């Protein structure tokens, strides 16, 4: 990632290349390899969950009733806002408004942190009510899916940190790297959208 590439994004902003109809890969193409691969792995996990659910529908339903749908909705809304703020971060950085981009990046971190706190509180509540990882198959899947997502989210903070570091200094700014980090963050968001539907909503 050379800093000489930083001349480019200003041109992008100035010419409004989207209006030109010029197609570009958002961020490093390498990150998209990660996104697609991890998404495939998650699809496998989701499929296993759905299938296992059809084998014991009543057990899963009754256990699911102990989850709080409102908390799930709250989590989803929080991550959606964070995706919105990181998307704004990318666009403002592209146009050269780095102060705004930085604020948006911090905002994203804040919402991400809110999600983390909410998730931990939810786990604690469930455990206090007696529902742990080994309680039954539904809860095994619940903790597994939410925990592996949580882990991905923690890694997301590392990427956000890289984005912030890049934006802060004029010498380091790389639009491609900011877009790369944002791409990863959005992935965590859309994976959660699926987890929410599968754990909280589906019957």
């Amino acid at each position: 990632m050379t800093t000489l590439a930083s001349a480019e994004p200003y041109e992008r902003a100035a010419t409004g290349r989207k209006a030109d109809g010029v197609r570009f890969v958002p961020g490093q193409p390498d990150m998209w390899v990660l996104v697609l691969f991890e998404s495939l792995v998650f699809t496998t996990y989701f499929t296993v969950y759905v299938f296992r659910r059809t084998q014991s529908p009543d057990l899963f339903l009754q256990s699911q009733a102990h989850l709080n749908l409102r908390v799930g909705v709250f989590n989803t809304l929080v991550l959606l806002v964070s995706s919105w703020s990181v998307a704004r971060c990318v666009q403002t950085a592209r146009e050269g408004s780095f102060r705004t981009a930085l604020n948006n990046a911090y905002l994203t971190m804040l919402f991400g942190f809110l999600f983390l706190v909410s998730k931990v509180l939810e786990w604690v509540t469930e455990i206090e009510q007696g529902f742990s990882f080994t309680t039954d198959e539904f809860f095994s899947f619940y903790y597994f899916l939410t925990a592996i997502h949580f882990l991905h989210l923690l890694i997301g903070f590392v990427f956000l940190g890289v984005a912030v570091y890049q934006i802060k200094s004029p010498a380091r700014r790389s639009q491609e790297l900011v877009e790369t980090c944002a791409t990863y963050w959005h992935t965590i968001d859309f994976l959660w959208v699926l987890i929410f539907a599968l754990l909280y909503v589906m019957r």
Partner: protein
Amino acid sequence: MSAATTGAAPEVPSGSLLRKIVWHWRYDEKRELWIGWWTLVVFYNLYGLLFFVIARTQPPPKPSLTAPEIVQWFHDRHYGLLYGYAIVSIVGGATAIMNATLAYTMRRMSVSRAFAYSYLVIYALATLPGMLIMGVACTVGAMRPDRNPALMSWLYDFAFLSFEGTMGVFLIGSLVWMVAVLLDRNRVFPKWFGYLNLCNALTEVVVAPAWIFKRGVFAWDGGIAWWTNMAVFVTYTTVFLTLLRKMILREDFGTGPLPELQSDHPPEPGTREAA
């Protein structure tokens, strides 16, 4: 590509495979790297053959088997276990060459040598749970089929928990390689391979519940803990073997960025050299 500097016969001779191999042995400056690469390829294939076909310890059996069933399991695989793991114990030392070759890739990178050294240490230790402990436990079980069933159960659990449940070692190793690739300025490996290491590491975290569950998808033979993990691991291994081969072809024994593979015509001057 390489031979011009040796001052020896510059052209690979046409003719039989044997002649070519002898030529490479004598003149190819990359022969050690190629020996390393071929060792990796042969070993992984052999490993698959030994574990999956001969010993038949993979795919793993259920953790929920009862003691009599476990005795039967050992009985069904008596000769496979003994002969299979005898072979493993002979060729097992090849892992030293394999790990050295992979550590070499990190030495070629622009990052600190500490990465290569930590990788070496981690993966040297990894042969214990990743191969040897299971081998020993299974052959001990197979050696005296009339052993107390409770002891056989113990050996069975010990073999499979140590093999499936200790993925953490490989997890850290993957992360070390990932960071090295992402920080590297010599373009030894593409950045997406760094990210693939992250995928591999995360999938290995997923195996940890195998210590807790005796049935279901998180048990050591489960759909998530074993099958998905194995699919990711096989993909990852195939990918890095391919990338390693490319890397060796590109190797120029310098310390700067690795040149890209040349196509049929030489590159325009000044294009590749800009960072």
